[in-house]
């Protein structure tokens, strides 16, 4: 009936989201509402989600502008523990820097940094038990580093060299480390979310005590898998922590394209009856506290928790990306939550447990550790060094537990063609 006579209707219009700033614009986040550190209540871990519906719309913060840890979410960590978190964050950044350079030097095809987001993975790893299973996306290398996984092993994967346990099959940074509780990474976004819920359901069904945690970017909340996971987690009260890393950008699409203009990402938990927190993702102590709360909740059979980590992707999406083409070069500098490493360092200094000289010495030590690991890994080859570090025939292995006839035939055919061609 759109053209029914006599109806003098205004034409409809379509809203297409647009970020506030494009390259060349002057950036200001002055109008961004930010709750003060220590201002948000901390409910009991057994509380009914219906009693905490305000939490997704505020921001849990622990570190105040003076570097003090304040408020009910202060996890009250021992200084050694905080130094350990700082160390893993610094090591993650040093690792990223070296691997980024390695990609630029042609030693590998691809790399993704997590600069500015180190607290999200590192602090969470410290708040989880080692036996808990993590289902990460591609920007949580901090989980492995915080769990002291060998850097050489990670680098071998990045180089697809002879030391790569994944036999050169996966894109660089798509690690798998079952022993470290680190699930194989998929490039198809969001797929690991329902898998984490399934793992957690299995753990609960078996009467185990281990829980699962998963991470997606805010852009991925638009995927159907996200909603499948939330439904199953809610229905079965799975002992799982569902993390959303809101770093504002999904390659060149800003958070508005995933629905970020209309509500917060944490608020997605409300419709599922899932406890939902929104956390300052650049505040390592806040991330720790939220994860610890969610883990206790899961272990107490009180159900899943959805955590939005509000942060900023300070670097490019990947080595194949050029963010200067779609956002102001200085946007990250203006982002009001600051650098997570600088903030934690300032905290330790403020409480008299750290100083500039120690910090510089640690950075030098970690850079050397990464450099030594790099040399060790490169002894086993790089992607550009040898095309078939693992032997071409290995590409036919592990498709199935046992190689079926058709794959054996294709492997033999491949070998014969290479033999005839003299390669």
């Amino acid at each position: 009936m759109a053209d029914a006579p006599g109806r003098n209707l205004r034409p409809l219009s379509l809203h297409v989201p647009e970020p506030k700033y494009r390259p060349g614009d002057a950036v200001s986040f002055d109008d961004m509402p930010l709750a003060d550190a220590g201002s948000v209540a901390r409910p009991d871990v057994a509380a009914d989600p219906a009693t905490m519906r305000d939490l997704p719309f505020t921001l849990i913060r622990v570190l105040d502008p003076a570097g003090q840890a304040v408020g009910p979410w202060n996890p009250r960590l021992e200084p050694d523990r905080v130094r350990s978190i700082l160390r893993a964050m610094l090591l993650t950044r040093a690792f990223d820097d070296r691997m980024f350079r390695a990609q630029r030097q042609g030693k590998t095809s691809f790399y993704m940094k997590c600069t500015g987001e180190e607290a999200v993975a590192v602090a969470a790893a410290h708040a989880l038990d080692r036996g808990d299973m993590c289902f990460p996306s591609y920007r949580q290398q901090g989980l492995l580093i915080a769990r002291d996984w060998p850097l050489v092993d990670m680098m071998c994967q990045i180089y697809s060299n002879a030391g790569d346990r994944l036999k050169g099959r996966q894109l660089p940074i798509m690690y798998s480390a079952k022993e470290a509780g680190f699930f194989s990474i998929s490039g198809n976004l969001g797929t690991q979310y329902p898998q984490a819920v399934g793992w957690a359901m299995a753990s609960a069904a078996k009467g185990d005590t281990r829980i699962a945690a998963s991470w997606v970017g805010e852009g991925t909340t638009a995927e159907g898998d996200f909603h499948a996971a939330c439904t199953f987690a809610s229905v079965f009260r799975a002992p799982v922590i569902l993390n959303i890393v809101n770093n504002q950008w999904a390659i060149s699409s800003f958070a508005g394209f995933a629905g970020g203009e209309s509500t917060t990402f944490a608020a997605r938990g409300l419709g599922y009856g899932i406890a939902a927190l929104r956390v300052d993702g650049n505040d390592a102590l806040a991330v720790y506290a939220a994860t610890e709360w969610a883990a206790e909740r899961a272990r107490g059979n009180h159900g899943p928790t959805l955590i939005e980590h509000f942060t900023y992707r300070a670097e490019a999406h990947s080595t194949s990306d050029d963010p200067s083409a779609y956002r102001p070069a200085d946007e990250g500098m203006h982002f009001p939550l600051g650098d997570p490493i600088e903030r934690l360092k300032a905290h330790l200094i403020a409480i008299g447990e750290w100083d500039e000289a120690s910090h510089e010495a640690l950075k030098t030590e970690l850079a050397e550790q990464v450099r030594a690991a790099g040399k060790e890994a490169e002894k086993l080859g790089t992607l550009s060094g040898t095309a078939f570090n693992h032997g071409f025939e290995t590409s036919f292995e592990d498709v199935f537990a046992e190689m079926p006839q058709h794959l054996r035939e294709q492997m033999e055919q491949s070998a014969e063609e290479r033999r005839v061609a003299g390669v």
Partner: protein
Amino acid sequence: MNMIQAINSAMDVCMERDAGVTVLGEDVGYFGGVFRATAGLQKKYGKTRVFDAPINECGIIGVAIGMAAYGLRPVPEIQFADYIYPGMDQLISEAARLRYRSAGEFTCPITVRSPFGGGIFGGQTHSQSPEGIFTHVSGLKTVIPSNPYDAKGLLIAAIEDPDPVLFFEPKRIYNGPFDGHYDRPVQPWSKHDSSEVPEGYYNVPLGQAAIVRGGEAVTILCYGTMVHVALGVVADTGVDAEVIDLRTLVPLDIDTIVASVEKTGRCVIVHEATRTSGFGAELSAQVQERCFHHLEAPIERVTGWDTPYPHSLEWAYFPGPVRLGEALKRVMKD
């Protein structure tokens, strides 16, 4: 046993033997499934091993993958194969590749059961045969039984298999073999040899076809409901055909196929799925590649048409005895 009972018995046997075997899917718990394939299992094994799932195939498959990564052996049910598509990414990108991409660190021993195929007036949303889509994916196995004995033995083998398996159940023959003569009464399985199904454990290994009728004149390659259509046509026409029930499409028992075609020199492939890029195309290509010098006539394909399954006209779609009979005549004429 009929086929439903055999499938139920297979799950019962596996759940009894392995506490990790877990059944999930829409309506599979208290109610026992819309086809009753999981009847009684929840009562016997409890709600944490047999449970209803939200109507969310992506979630059902994704959760099953996570359970498998934990160490369980999930048996998710997709109520109709037509509804498997929302779970495709989980099957194709995740289940199929998990072992490969993690070099064996993580594996995915799930068995996805799903009724498929037409002939029950299910229209375009309850009749499709999607097996060809999955046989195209590296890392998935595809199994299709044609009788109660095989259904139980193959399902047990599938659940015990270390890799992800799609187990498509030809729902038209759940209660009795169907030869494609829709105007004739269907005999129940109880009058068929294959209804002699042992109560306890046995398996039918994956990757082995069955020669269900030996013959010299032509090889008919088929699976599921089409096995009975083929046997019916052979009985009606008296053609001395060798009828091979493939039982598993991946891994395929190519040796049995090649030996048969080399003997008969003729090959007719029959399946219910649409023709273009269907599994018949793969069979045809392999027979041509391996048996070219033995062939005495072009390979024939009798398949569903490249249209959606039409509700009231389903017998125009179904590759029944008339069409198979004509194909046999064509291939036998020289």
